[in-house]
């Protein structure tokens, strides 16, 4: 017959057990507190680690450029609304006359629209040659392509008819050295793609 030894520790073992549980709980709470503090510090590691070499985050840009980036993202919503209303992409002049920032006059940029196939680009060249150039690239789906099921996010927007748009915002440091033309591969021409947050690594990026 098998004999099983049962040990009872009594009060000492119970208090020891309690102490261990308290220590472990403290360590876990400490871990959570440290993690939260660390994340809240806002400067967590190298922002480049989740990005491709030609991509960057808006928060790493100078303040004035961050402002322009956010204005451009806001202006994009009105551009999309016009596209839905008119069934074509609005000209920069029309956007300027409608006072849509940053296309409105007096922002220090001259905007031009370029099209190639299903891709349209709004290119903003600075009046000050030392300021960066900006480009908003919008890609519509190819005809007869299967529906894109990516959820709406910074890179994927949907028109009211369900058309999925791919959105890219680009910046060129030397705005005065950029030619006014359609740029099929911006990353190969010294352009940097700007994000608010790192893109989702699972969803498809840059189809062109």
């Amino acid at each position: 017959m098998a004999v099983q030894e049962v040990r009872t520790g009594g009060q000492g073992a119970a208090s020891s057990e309690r102490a261990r549980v308290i220590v472990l709980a403290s360590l876990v709470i400490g871990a959570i507190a440290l993690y939260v503090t660390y994340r809240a510090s806002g400067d967590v590691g190298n922002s480049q680690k989740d990005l491709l070499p030609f991509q960057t985050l808006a928060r790493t840009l100078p303040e004035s450029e961050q402002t322009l980036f956010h204005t451009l993202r806001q202006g994009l919503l009105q551009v999309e609304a016009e596209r839905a209303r008119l069934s074509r992409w609005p000209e920069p002049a029309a956007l300027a006359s409608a006072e849509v920032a940053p296309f409105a006059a007096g922002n220090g940029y001259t905007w031009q629209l370029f099209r190639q196939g299903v891709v349209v680009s709004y290119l903003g060249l600075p009046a000050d040659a030392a300021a960066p150039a900006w480009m908003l690239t919008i890609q519509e789906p190819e005809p007869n392509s299967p529906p894109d099921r990516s959820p709406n996010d910074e890179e994927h927007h949907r028109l009211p008819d369900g058309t999925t748009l791919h959105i890219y915002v680009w910046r060129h440091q030397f705005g005065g050295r950029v030619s006014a033309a359609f740029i099929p591969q911006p990353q190969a021409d010294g352009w940097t793609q700007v994000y608010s947050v790192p893109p989702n690594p699972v969803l498809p990026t840059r189809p062109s």
Partner: protein
Amino acid sequence: MASAAENYDEAMTPSLRPGRSRRASVVLAGLLAALLGSTAHLSAHDPNAEPVVDMTIRAAAGQLVVSVTLPGSALSDANLPTENDGLLAAQGLEQPLEVVGRGIANTLELRQADVLLPPPAIRAAVGPDRLSALITLVYPFNAANGSLSGRLHTFRSGGTLIRTLVHYEPLSGAARTFDITGDYERVLFEPQASDVVKQFATRGTTTLLGGSLYFLVALCLIAPLRSARTLTTAVVALAGGQLIASAAATLAGWSPGATTLATLQIVEASTVVVLAAQGVLSPRSRWLPALGLVFGLVFGAELGAQFTQTAAFAGAHHAAGFVTFALILILGEAWIAALMASATGLIYRWPRVPERWTTLMLAAIVAHTALHRVSDSSQRLTDAGIPADRLLMTVTLGWAAAILCAGIAGSLLRTTGPANTPTWSDASGSF
């Protein structure tokens, strides 16, 4: 009442007394020094050929002069005119380069007491090699107006980040060099002690949570059942070695090249492999603190080099920066070890968790990961044109010799007590 594991440790390690542990540590540390010494020649061929933007910020009477030397790669996105030989045009580049200079001034955002400095006067010229450019920004400056800060950043070229070395030469005091390799940093050139403590606490936390090597070591320490005393001794030895080596590297201003760093990382990762093997083959080994010390020394040397690289950010409060950095790391490591040990203690209380197989599996994972790190570092050496196979052979033979010496030393130092080989059944019992 001492736990079974504690009793076991005491019974199995009769010679684990401070003097002998010290001797063991000295033997292993000596072997490690010899090992590193045998690879020292590698650093002599360190081909640090990466392009670097060199910037000097010099405070002078009434003005602040920023001189920037841009390598050709940092100018590639500027689409500057070139000649038939592919080099920059010898003439007519002043105006385009001035635009580049104004762009640099815009992103540098030099401030004094939070007030942006007025736009600088710009001088620009093509370098004598016609590959690089020299740009000088001259700002009106009065040192009495407050502390200076700048937004230091890397440069980009075709999607590649180019490192920036910024030399700061104040009106009085020692010159400092900032090595900028990642994100931009708003740098206070004369920071207060509180700024330094805050900044180096963040750097310490990032280092602690960003690297996986210490977690692997902690897994090696906690996987076999070990008494709290044994674990504490090992962690203290590791922390001691780390503190000594990092302090020594910092005091010496040690800033190794990429290949020396890769060599160091190979030795570090190989120590983890040995620790994992030891956890399986001899979980109650008396050499655990010695191995912890060795790892601490190597890891500490790397951390010291890392601190040296960022020491300029501490300004005049160098000591405060180092103490904060080292303290955060050591406290964090102790906390991680305690957390993992407590969790393991609870897990092993569940009777269906077999310690032998758990240790074996964890050791396999740790050794596999560590070997990958050895392989990655070796690849970096190979890419730099250094035959890594010879180094790997040296490391392997070094460890074989160390283990052999440890065995001989153990036999010679053993006095009384049971000399039998530990078995897994002996290791059972509560943590």
